[in-house]
């Protein structure tokens, strides 16, 4: 579960004398939800996500994620908190010198999973994103869409409670963007909360669901919209 209470973020920026990236933001996201976060460039979407991963601390207000009070979280406990999140980025952030299989196995080693678990888990998540046949390929040999699917497999491999995606379709063919959202929805169906930031309004209109619209650091809209596809 995610809860932001009266959150302000003020960046101290020498040139302009500081930026108010978020003003008095209140958001509550329950377990199992799928949420789109939209807004113009500079609206504060990335700042919001950085709060959730505790890359930054709010200047005011309180942030709770998966039962952790992020203001009080000790640096020593930070790694264990991060393991409850799965991150997906616009630029994929795969390790170019490792194969697809090794990229996924790598993060499981990082969180100290057993050899046996890794041998079972990696093929399972690669199967989920339909990339088992590319397990031995290197990221450079894959299309953007395929690379992002590897990143999704990697994020899901650690069995996180929440998946946070910052413009995951930003760098890939618009037609393949739907694939990505559908994979995230599959993961959401397994009970994982998904928070996805996007610029792509067509995508949001097509799938519908809960949408949070940020405008100049404040929430302009937070509600459920009807999608173009039926049967949700």
């Amino acid at each position: 579960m995610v809860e932001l209470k009266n959150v302000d973020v003020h960046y101290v920026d020498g040139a302009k004398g500081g930026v108010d990236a978020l003003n008095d933001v209140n958001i509550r996201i329950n377990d199992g939800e799928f949420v789109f976060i939209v807004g113009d460039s500079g609206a504060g979407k990335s700042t919001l996500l950085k709060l959730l991963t505790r890359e930054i601390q709010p200047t005011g207000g309180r942030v709770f994620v998966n039962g952790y009070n992020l203001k009080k979280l000790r640096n020593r406990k930070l790694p264990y908190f991060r393991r409850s999140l799965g991150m997906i980025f616009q630029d994929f952030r795969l390790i170019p010198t490792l194969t697809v299989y090794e990229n996924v196995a790598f993060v499981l080693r990082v969180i100290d999973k057993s050899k046996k678990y890794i041998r079972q888990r990696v093929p399972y998540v690669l199967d989920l994103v339909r990339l088992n046949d590319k397990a031995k390929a290197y990221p450079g040999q894959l299309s953007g869409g395929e690379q992002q699917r590897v990143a999704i497999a990697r994020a899901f491999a650690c069995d996180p409670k929440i998946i946070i995606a910052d413009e995951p379709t930003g760098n890939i063919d618009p037609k393949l963007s739907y694939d990505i959202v559908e994979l995230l929805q599959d993961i959401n169906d397994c009970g994982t909360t998904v928070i996805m930031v996007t610029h792509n309004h067509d995508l949001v209109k097509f799938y519908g669901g809960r949408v949070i619209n940020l405008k100049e650091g404040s929430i302009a809209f937070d509600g459920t919209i009807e999608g173009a596809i039926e049967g949700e």
Partner: protein
Amino acid sequence: MRMSNFGYLVRRGVGSVFRNAMMSVASFCVLLVSLLLIGLSVLIAMDINIIMSNIEEKNEISVYVRGDLSTEELNHISDVISSNPNTMTGGVVYYSKDQAWEDEKEKLSEYAELFDYLEENPMPDTFRVTVSDVSRISDTAAEFKSIEGVERVDAPYDFARAMVNIRATLSVIALGLLAVMIVTSVIIVYNAIRSSVFARAKEINIMKVVGATNSFVKIPFFIEGMFIGIAAGAAAWGLTKVIYEVIVQLFEEDITIWRIFGLVNIVQFDDVTWYLLAADCVLGALLGAIGTIISTGKYVKV
């Protein structure tokens, strides 16, 4: 941490050594030279120590006593000298005036007639005292001088001062050299690890994002730094052996010169070989680790 994952980190660290071949070779060479110089200077310092103590042992204070003393008084003086803390155990030799007279006559046998003119033995009774600490020879001589019945004290003050100066100078040179080499080694390892950290910036970022602990991120870099250090230590040990044995050989070819000073017992490499191997590897690993600590402390913000 599981052994399998620790093993993985070790493999990654060692892999890094070869991936950053240029930096690794540079670090290896600098560490090698450092450890070689350190090893050789330790061995040579040990040799110089042996040589110096041999020379110093030949170094005596002569304590001349008055001619009119009784046997009790002589024994008393002998006891006082022996109980001085700077007197070497068993280092007091009594040299009687008669003995001195005989020796003198023998030395000057060509002029035997001269001695006939002397009615009385002019030589004094003497104690020859070997001291353990040459640097304190002046104080010790003064103490002997103040004993009742002692007439005169002779000590090789200049010689003592020279010895003390030589030792001090050599120590300063050796310590300066060691300090420079150690600092250089740490800096070069620091640079190698820093470049390795930059080469892995992407991995480190991902590791942090998915929740790697501090130690997990840093272990491969420690393995890398220490691997280079240990490899350089082992190589330095081998090179030290080769060079030192050449030095020993040169020394032993000219042994007659050295024998005059009684200096034949220099350190043999085989006697210290295992200590030196262990010391080289430990020191190499330590220098590697220190370079890594500074580098990761600065560039791996977890």
